[in-house]
């Protein structure tokens, strides 16, 4: 198990929900954290991280804006001296359907694809040269959706079908007909997952993704007009549990899994399960350190 204490991380979208849980779990392990978000509450999150005894810096801005990305990454490096971990978490959801008009569709594209796909691209591309130059390995974790790794496909069928909400029939891919841009933005992350993992394996940098099902978060509460029923909330996963799984995965270190979509789906335990077989890459191509 790799010790995380003293390492330096960036968590995007860290003002609320999963992002703030990731940031706090990292701080709990002694990791210094740079946080960013559109919301000004991000500064309070940094304050609470400092109260936990680590260094923290905060930035308010839009992850689809290259200048903001540059400011966060360069600022974190200057404040901490290095960047070891990137959690690409910032994401938005909005309804979009096949017959929306062009004005709405282009605005939706800029917001949803801009945040969820371009934002993760820009942060990844900004930290990679730094991690490569440091020569001490690194961790990149992209936050995606369970819409692309549903229980029946592509990796496994739920082993506990009798207790699984999708047990009657394997759940199809996709989040439904009003998620074309959201799902496109998240599917697109697979292009980064596999491409980056291959390119960065020789540098001891791992790239994995968490594919999140329904988790009690600002995004999901917003989906339910900020008035979800108690039963609904009780069925959701807890962000704190997922953050612990994130810590467990980071502690695997260089010999751990790479180029993997880790599925967190309602009805399954919220914990880091063993790595699965690779379907989209050849394992040798993403074995960390092999080619160095």
């Amino acid at each position: 198990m790799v010790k995380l204490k003293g390492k330096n991380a960036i968590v995007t979208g860290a003002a609320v929900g999963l992002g703030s849980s990731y940031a706090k779990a990292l701080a709990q392990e002694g990791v210094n954290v740079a946080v960013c978000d559109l919301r000004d509450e991000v500064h309070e999150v940094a304050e609470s991280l400092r109260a936990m005894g680590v260094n923290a810096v905060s930035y308010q801005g839009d992850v689809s804006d290259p200048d903001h990305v540059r400011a966060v990454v360069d600022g974190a490096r200057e404040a901490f001296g290095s960047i070891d971990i990137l959690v690409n978490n910032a994401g938005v959801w909005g309804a979009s359907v096949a017959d929306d008009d062009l004005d709405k569709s282009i605005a939706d594209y800029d917001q949803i694809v801009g945040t969820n796909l371009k934002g993760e691209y820009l942060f990844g591309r900004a930290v990679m040269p730094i991690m490569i130059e440091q020569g001490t390995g690194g961790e990149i974790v992209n936050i995606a959706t369970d819409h692309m790794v549903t229980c029946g496909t592509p990796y496994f069928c739920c082993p506990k079908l009798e207790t699984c909400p999708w047990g009657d029939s394997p759940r199809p891919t996709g989040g439904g007909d009003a998620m074309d841009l959201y799902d496109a933005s998240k599917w697109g992350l697979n292009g980064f997952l596999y491409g980056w993992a291959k390119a960065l394996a020789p540098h001891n940098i791992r790239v994995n993704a968490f594919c999140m099902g329904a988790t009690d978060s600002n995004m999901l509460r917003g989906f339910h007009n900020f008035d979800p029923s108690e039963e609904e909330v009780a069925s959701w996963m807890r962000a704190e549990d997922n953050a612990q799984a994130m810590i467990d995965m980071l502690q695997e270190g260089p010999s751990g899994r790479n180029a993997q979509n880790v599925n967190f789906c309602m009805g399954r335990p919220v914990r880091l399960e063993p790595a699965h077989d690779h379907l989209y890459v050849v394992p040798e191509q993403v074995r960390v350190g092999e080619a160095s």
Partner: protein
Amino acid sequence: MSLSGKVAIVSGAADGLGKAFALRLAQEGCKVLGFDVRKEVLDVPGITGMVADVSKRGDVESVVEKASGMGEIGVLVNNAGTWKKTPVDSPWQQAIDDWDFIMDTNLKGVLMLSRAVVPFLQKDGGHIINLSTYYVLPAKSDGTNQPDTDLYNASKWALNGFTDAWADYLEKDNVKVNGMCMGATDTPMLRGLFPTNELPAEMAAVVMKAEDIAEQMMDIIASGRTGENFGAWVGEEITIGEQPPLHKRITG
């Protein structure tokens, strides 16, 4: 549904797969509007050619206006695509420019053209085909999801979201939406990857032919299936195969 007399729109129709699709649809009796940024599209026989850029909103609107004036639109083939190497250690400004170069055509272009065409397809049903890559299906070789083409890969993976959601949403309108996930096909895009614009002999011997892929597209349309990614791999029979269970139609 007979395609005869329907209007078919094919993006990137100047050569390669797009030209093959356009010619095959014309042979089927469609009135084909093929467009491309390259003026060679005007020389493709038997179709209406138009110089237009799918990444530009105004061009997209002109294309759809022209197509709708030709008759009832029944087919949209989202074929236009760009490719370039985008290594992970590119300089920052290059990385930003590369995003626009790849995504404006391969993702935003597909979105804009489809959004503009869908209201016409909803009138009497139709077909949307999204051209993707075999990288988005489980690997059969070590050549998939290359390390130096992250943006191209991402642009094609993202199409899964469109194919899946559009098939759901447009089922009520009898509009079928499918993806074609291409392996190496003898096209100018593939030839362009080699220094002399010629395929190495061992690749030339096995590479798939655009005409055969066009035939696969007609089989997909004729099948009436929707919400699926259809693969085509070098060295394997080009077929649409049996319909997989619902939860495996996108992931293969």
